[in-house]
């Protein structure tokens, strides 16, 4: 068993905020076709990885549910 402190959660929240701000900025700034295509490319990568994270979270929650 391992107890994780609030700093880890805070760190993750901070990273998420930076990512969200970056994405909003990129979306607002994608005025040319070239910028749009670059953003599309990055979004493909991000979403693909989010599918993986989602799978990992599901697996964890499943195990957690079985353990409780």
């Amino acid at each position, binding site marked *: 068993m391992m107890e994780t402190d609030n700093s880890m959660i805070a760190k993750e929240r901070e*990273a998420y905020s930076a990512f969200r701000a970056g994405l909003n900025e990129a979306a607002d700034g994608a005025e040319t076709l070239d910028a749009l295509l670059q953003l599309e490319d990055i*979004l*493909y990568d991000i979403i693909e990885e989010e599918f993986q994270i989602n799978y990992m979270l599901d697996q*964890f929650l499943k195990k957690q549910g079985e353990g409780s």
Partner: protein
Amino acid sequence: MNIMISINREFIPCACVMLMSLKEHHEDTELSVYVLHHELTQQDLLEMDQVIGSDGIALIPVYIPEGTVGDFRMGKWPEEAAYRLLATDLFARDMDRILHLDTDMLITGSLLDFYNTSFDGNYLVACEDFMSKEQRKKKCRDFAKDEDALFFNSGVLLFNLSKLAEDGFYYAVYADILQKYPAIRIEFPDQDMLNLLFGGKTKYMDRIRYNYAPYYYRIYDGERYYDTREQLISNCNVLHMIWMSKPWESPVRMEANELWWEYAGRTPYYEAMKRRHVQNMLEQERKMNDMLRDKADRITAEPSDGQLIDSASGAQLLDEMCRREQRFADMLIKK
């Protein structure tokens, strides 16, 4: 070759992409494309004509007054989805066959063999639908059919107009059946009705060749999932971008979509479609992230014993999310 498509204004760009690819693979064939619609303007039709080019292909607008197929206007489907049920009413007097094509498709080979095939006494020619065995059994049970019956997809559909007219299968019959049997759940307005009536009276063609849905095979049948251009072009004559795989909506990279975008790049709609795609992806990313945060919150929720995360793997997960988010932010800054 007589072709029918059904569109509203929103689908003009993807119809043009499909028709450009159709034309490219039938250079020596006269194509008469009947465009069923209820809202296109003269300007829209002129623009489509200019985009596709007039050599060897004629666009023939067929205006359908709004509400004509009102009985079949259900759920998320626009009424244009049911226009194919008007095939006998509209065309049986002038021709003996017509091929309906959905517009979320890319034509990658000849359709002449499909179009000219003998009906062998059947009302329709089509390909098996994309659904799991369980879904198919449920459909067949709902329609009181043999559980092992094949269910066809109505995206590529050749109508035997002579036989349909001879036996009286006009729109009024479909509407009448719908009224008499409201218990029949019409999930896909046109497709379910046609399967209900013609499930055992349809000639089946190879669905890999004539109605290949890349996303279906990616999810359900990896062995037959083609993700190289060479495989797609040599094995398939029609790519059908079903479900969430429509190129302007899909968050997933697929070679079939890249091929579609190449055709789209030759239309004046390209940048607008790309903008729409990015907006769709941003929306999907937001939804996906909301879901991830919800799950992460469940992991970090403080249980009664005071521990925030009660296992090493939970902490690792949080760390993983953190690292990826930092990397995403870096990618965006570099852009």
